[in-house]
Structure formats: structure tokens, C-alpha cells
């Protein structure tokens, strides 16, 4: 017991302490708000997309638990420079990984694989996926606050 390294890996702890791409973005052309009522995690996600559908810049701000903060931070690092289609693809892979829907984490998730341990903590899946759901909402310019408890079956 007393081994928390499956969830609280060094990389996660580092990102929660020093979140990357943190803070408001003034030249964003897409943004969305996310909320996890379970632990009160709140975040706003900002995207700057160019005409070719490339994510030129991505930022987030908000407050939350270590898992949600680190997940948001690492997501911004992973998605900067990616095409929106790639972002959507990673979103689905990440989602399936933390939900425990796939045996082995896909290689193209790269560093995001550190979140694989989340699948053994059902109470924390929403924390890890909040930023991703919010990113998706921002891509589609959804106006409503994304909630991990909105009854739309957004289970993770």
C-alpha cells in the first residue's frame, strides 16, 4: 500500500505544480468553459485556430484538483500545432484509455499515457477528462458550460 505512483506520477505532479500554457489568451478565436460539479473543478479553454484548422495556440485557466490541472496542462502541450482532426482523434483515444475501454494505451498518445492509471480510480476519470471535453466544446464553439454531470451520458 501507500504507493500512489500509479496515479500521482512525477510528470503529473510537475504539471500540476507548474502548469504550462496557463492563463487567459486575448487572441483566441474559440473558447469554452468546463465544470466538474463533483470536485468543483472549473476551467476555461482558449484556442486559436488558423484557416487550415491548425491549433496555433492553446491556453487554459481555472482551478481544480491535481489530476484535472495536470491533464489540462499536458493536453495543451500535446495539442499545440496539431490539426483539429488530430485533436479529436487524441481526445477519443485519451477518453477510451481513462475509461479503461482499451487494453493498452495507444502509442500516439505519447506522454499523455501517464494518465493510464486513472482507469483504476473511477472517481477520478472525470477530473482527467474535463479539459478534453472542454477542448472539444471549444472546437465546436458550444456556448453552454460543459459539465461532467450534465446527464448527457458524459461518463468520463
Amino acid at each position, binding site marked *: *500500500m*501507500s*504507493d*500512489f505512483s500509479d*496515479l*500521482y506520477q512525477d510528470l503529473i*505532479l510537475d504539471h500540476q505544480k507548474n502548469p504550462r500554457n496557463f492563463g487567459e489568451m486575448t487572441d483566441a478565436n474559440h473558447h469554452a468553459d468546463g465544470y466538474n460539479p*463533483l*470536485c*468543483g*473543478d*472549473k476551467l476555461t479553454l482558449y484556442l486559436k485556430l488558423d484557416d487550415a484548422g491548425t491549433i496555433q495556440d492553446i491556453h487554459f485557466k481555472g*482551478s*481544480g*484538483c*491535481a*489530476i484535472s490541472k495536470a491533464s489540462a496542462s499536458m493536453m495543451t502541450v500535446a495539442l499545440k500545432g496539431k490539426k483539429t482532426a488530430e485533436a479529436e482523434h487524441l481526445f477519443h483515444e485519451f477518453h477510451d484509455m481513462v475509461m479503461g475501454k482499451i487494453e493498452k494505451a495507444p502509442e500516439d498518445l505519447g506522454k499523455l499515457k501517464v494518465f493510464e492509471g486513472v482507469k483504476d*480510480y473511477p*472517481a*477520478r476519470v472525470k*477530473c482527467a477528462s474535463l479539459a478534453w471535453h472542454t477542448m472539444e466544446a471549444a472546437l465546436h464553439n458550444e456556448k453552454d458550460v460543459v459539465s461532467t454531470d450534465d446527464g448527457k451520458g458524459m461518463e468520463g
Partner: protein
Amino acid sequence: MATAHAESTTQTYDVLKYRKDFPILNQKVHGVPLVYLDNAATTQKPLSVIEAENKYYREYNANIHRGVHLLSQQATKAYEDARVKIQKFINAANSAEIIYTRGTTEGINLVAQTWGRKNVQAGDEILVSAMEHHSNIVPWQMLCEEKGAKLKVIPINDAGELLMDEFKKLVTSKTKLVAVTHVSNALGTINPIADIIQYAHSKGVLVLIDGAQSIPHIKVDVQALDCDFYAFSGHKIYAPTGIGVLYGKYKLLDAMPPYQGGGDMIASVTFEKTTYAKLPNKFEAGTPHIAGVIGLGAALDYVSAIGVDRIAAHEHELLVYGTQALSKIKEIRIIGTAAMKAGVISFTLGEIHPHDIGTILDKQGVAIRAGHHCAQPVMERFDIPATARASFGLYNVKEEIDVLVTAIQKTLEVFA
């Protein structure tokens, strides 16, 4: 319960013996012994409660109030005997003042939807406190919205105590009801409800008490308190979930319209007119949670045999011990430091989010609650998103608090 009562005054508090009555406590989680400190969320059930429900289903399961057969008579008797036990437990004047509900939430909604819709009008005011559980806020908001009435809030100080002077100022000729919690689930504060009731009554205002957190910890005498309504949940006092009680003064309940329509709540039905049953049946439409009622009766027997006062004294010792132990950890900030407190310690730990604390404690076998405790206005008042909360029950021991302290230190190490 004469023998049990005698026992309760002479014997020492044998917590290890009581622990053995709760089968669930004797287990390991994540490979370590379970330390259950989430009693404010729900309590564990003693064997006598589990067996009372079991016996009902094995030996005399039947619907109540309608069968002429033996099993139905037995079930009806057990169901009504429990009502008398509850009446005695809170010292109500009449067993017809004991209305079975699903829990505190339903009890409060019942009052809002029946008494409230009949008596509250546009311009009227309802007073709640800043430390209410959402279940003692939202039903009143819904009522106020429907009626054009206004919800007013009694503020609290930094210790988490009601500001009684402000309370008195807020009671005006427009005030129709004061709805306050006896004990705060998020802060542990015990409110001076006797004073509140007395003052409100001096102004002709009714008082509803949310008893969800007080029922297992404080000896409640509804007649001495003179409260008009008192709602509680079985599951917080070692009884099953899905069963609770609304106490109301007979005259008030009798004058209130029914809550739900259906079977069991009628005297006679024709398509032209239905006359309603007398209390308590008027408020108990449909087949109720019979097994739950029987389990609640067994739970009150269990608690009475030990004695609520002795349980309260034991939990107070744990509160004092726990508060001292946690205060020694410099990163800890205890939220809720009222002079009068029940066995609840809400805290934050440096910058570590309570949800992370909860996960790391869980891995060490310690079950606590992390979150806003369905009291978001309280969190806002203290400008925090959430707290971690340890809450004690009759079976907790100081050694478990020691485990909690060690687990918190480990949490600090992970985030160091």
C-alpha cells in the same frame, strides 16, 4: 428498553464491543484495515438492523394496512410499532405526528410543497441560514419562485456560527418560516435552535429544523424545543437508506393539504370527490418502504440501548482529540471552529485539492468526504472550492484518528 436504559447509565462506553456489532467495519480496503470517517454522509449499519430487515423479508413480508391475512397483520404491526418508537425517540406528543418519508430531503420538500404552497404568498419571506445543505435551500427557492416570495439568509461568522443579532433583524412581519439546520454537515456547528425557535415564535413565525446531522448525535425533544417541523434521515442514524421522518405539530399537519395522491392516503374515493385519510396516512400515499421502517425502528433500539448522550460524549472526545491532532499539522486549516460543534472536522491542506486528499487517504484505508458537501454557499463564504471532511460515529476510536493523521502526512509527502 428498561434494562437497556439501566445499562446505559452504569456501564462504561465499550466502543470495541460496539464495533463488533458492525460487520462492515471488519474489513480491509486496498489491503489495509478500513477506517471509516465518513459518517456525516452515511453511517454503517449494526447487525441488528440488517437482521431486522432480513427477518421481515424472510418471515413476514406483506403489504400493510390492507391484508386480512396474518403476514399483513404482522407487517402492519411492525410498521406501526416503529412509528411509536420514533415518537418516543424524539418525544413527540402523538405518533400521528410521525410521517415516514424517504429522508430529510423529502421531508423538507413535503413541507415546502404543502404547508408552503398554502401559506406563503407574494411578498412573504422565508429565512434560511448561510450554512444550509442544498436540501434546505432549493425547496424554498422553488417555492419562492412560484409564489413571488423572497428567500433571506442568516449570515455566519468566520468560526461558522450564526449571527444571532442579524437573525433577529431578519425576522420581520413578512417572515413566514425559519428553516435552519440543527447541526451543519459541512462545518459541524451546533446551532442554538432553542433560542431561534423561541425568538421566531415570539414573532409568530414557524420554524423547521433540518435534523439530518443532529439526530444521531444530540438527544432531541421536539416538545421541549417546540419546533414546528423536524426532518431527519434514517441512514444517518445507523438505519437503512430510503427511509426518513418528518415530524410536524399535529395541528399544522392536519391543516396541510396532502403531498402526493394515491392509495393509503384516502378515506374514500369517488370520481366526484375524495376525502383524505387522517394523519399520518394522509401523507403516506402508496406502498411505503416497510423494510426500511422496520430497520429504522431497530436502529433506534440499538442507539437507545447505548444512549444518545453517551454516544455524544464519546464523539465529543473524538472531536477534541482529532482537532488537536490535526491542528499540529501546520498545512491544515480547519473550516468551522464554532464553540459548539458535533463530530465533524472539515479542513483544507495547503494548496492540495481535497479531491486529491480523498484519493490518497482512500489508498491508505481512510474513507473521508471530499467536496462541497452539498453546501456550496458555505464554501463560497470561506472562499474555498471544497474541503476534506472527517466525521465520527459511535464506533470510531482514537487509533483511527492516528491513522488519519499519518495518512495526511503521507499526502503532504506526495505533493512535497
